[in-house]
């Protein structure tokens, strides 16, 4: 309670952090890290430019850049003289402002020009444009977004980044169920409480109740069930959230695997992150060790979770 009060969190959140990290010391480390803004990062858009050329143009403008070791197109921006979203290079679509951790799901999904891909919660377009980049604007992507307002931002991102292999559909992704066994790659970056984004938005320390957490978790289960159903046999599904809540992550994956046979967790194909939680509040989920968790105090990123599933042939 004292920690929650000191750092301004709702008490249920800190109680869970103590369980996740297993020690008071690390919980405090985590809470401290959340007090500081994160390094910003960008993803160079190879659909429109070469990364080396972008790098030199931005350096000329006074940006200090460092490659993100686990993201081939990612750069940390450690210093800049102008706002990242106000450069000509940004407007030309040469880069996307994207959290380094949130670049991981697309790399984990690893789509190619031969894939039919669906991005089930696509706005504002960071991951959709990254998928298109990895596919070289070939193949096809269905980008689904329920919110009328957010679909506009999604379209603007696709236009700015030069994406031409995508169809945008405004609907609740749960309604995709009739498209069973259709997509070779499915990305579900699920709507979540955003508990991993506290360093970027401290209001989240108190704005999400345990009721919100339960609601998010139920929605995520429904969405992940749909994701599995619409994946083709042999298809890959990547589930991710910008939350560190096990209720939105390992619990969701574990519950869905109990409800659907013929799906398994697989190695994520990324070189960063801690294994998922195998045990949490009585839940045992051995396969979660192949999922990945990222934390501000350990990885210098937003709190993030990603897990790769394969649907058997």
């Amino acid at each position, binding site marked *: 309670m004292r920690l929650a009060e000191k750092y301004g969190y709702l008490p249920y959140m800190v109680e869970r952090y103590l369980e996740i990290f297993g020690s008071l010391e690390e919980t405090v480390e985590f809470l401290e890290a959340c007090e500081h803004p994160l390094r910003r990062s960008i993803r160079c858009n190879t659909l429109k430019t070469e990364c080396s050329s972008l790098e030199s143009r931005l350096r000329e403008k006074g940006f200090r850049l460092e490659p993100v070791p686990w993201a081939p197109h990612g750069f940390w921006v450690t210093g800049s003289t102008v706002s990242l979203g106000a450069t000509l290079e940004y407007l030309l679509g040469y880069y996307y402002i994207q959290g380094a951790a949130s670049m991981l799901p697309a790399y984990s999904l690893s789509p190619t020009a031969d894939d039919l891909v669906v991005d089930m919660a696509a706005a504002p377009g960071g991951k959709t444009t990254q998928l298109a980049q990895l596919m070289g604007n070939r193949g096809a992507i*269905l980008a689904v977004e329920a919110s009328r307002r957010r679909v506009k931002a999604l379209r*603007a991102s696709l236009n700015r980044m030069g994406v031409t292999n995508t169809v945008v559909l405004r609907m609740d992704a749960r309604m995709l169920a009739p498209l069973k066994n259709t997509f070779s790659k499915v990305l579900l970056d699920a709507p979540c409480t955003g508990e991993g984004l506290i360093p970027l938005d401290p209001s989240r320390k108190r704005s999400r109740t345990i009721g919100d957490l339960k609601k998010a978790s139920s929605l995520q289960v429904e969405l992940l069930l749909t994701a599995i159903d619409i994946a083709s046999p042999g298809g890959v599904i990547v589930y991710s959230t910008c939350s560190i809540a096990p209720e939105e992550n390992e619990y969701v994956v574990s519950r869905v695997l109990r409800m659907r046979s013929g799906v398994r967790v697989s190695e994520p194909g990324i070189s960063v992150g801690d294994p998922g939680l195998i045990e949490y509040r009585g839940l045992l989920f051995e396969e979660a060790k192949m999922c990945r968790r990222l934390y501000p105090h350990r990885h210098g990123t937003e709190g993030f979770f990603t897990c790769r599933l394969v649907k058997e042939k």
Partner: protein
Amino acid sequence: MQAGEREVVFRKASPWEKRLLRKTLADSFGEEALNVLRGGEIYAVEAYWVELHLLGAEVEKLTGIIGRLGRHPYSAGLFLGWVRRGSFTPSLPLIQLIVGIAERGVVYVSEKAGMLFLYGRDILCSSVLRVKGGKPRRRQLVIVANKRGEALGLGVFEKKGSVCVENKLDLGWYLRRAG
């Protein structure tokens, strides 16, 4: 730049819409500009106005799959521009593809003028460095580009006092309106 709030209808572009698109591009930027339309099918998204989109084979196939849901796509493929009151206006993504292959209708401007253009300002004649393909006709659509040849937006060539190009659409739209 959006299809509006009304429920959208997605359909193949009509012959008239296709003719209007091709005529606008050829008249303003030369026949070479039509190469960007190669290998794709033109579709229209209709709401308050009509938007044209270019779909490659795989994307077109995907729209067929979506048809099983009884839903119309909000957009698809390359957004080409929109048709309103009988005229076609090219989109920002389209002019970025055309700028490198246009035979005419590209106005290269100084860095400072380019930056001001991104804030919605017109181009002064004194800021024009060169014009590809000779002086444009009055009211011709032109692409405004910087020294590197990067398209900054779309304008209308109109000499009015010290102004040579009226701003019609610029990349600053992504900041001003997109969110």
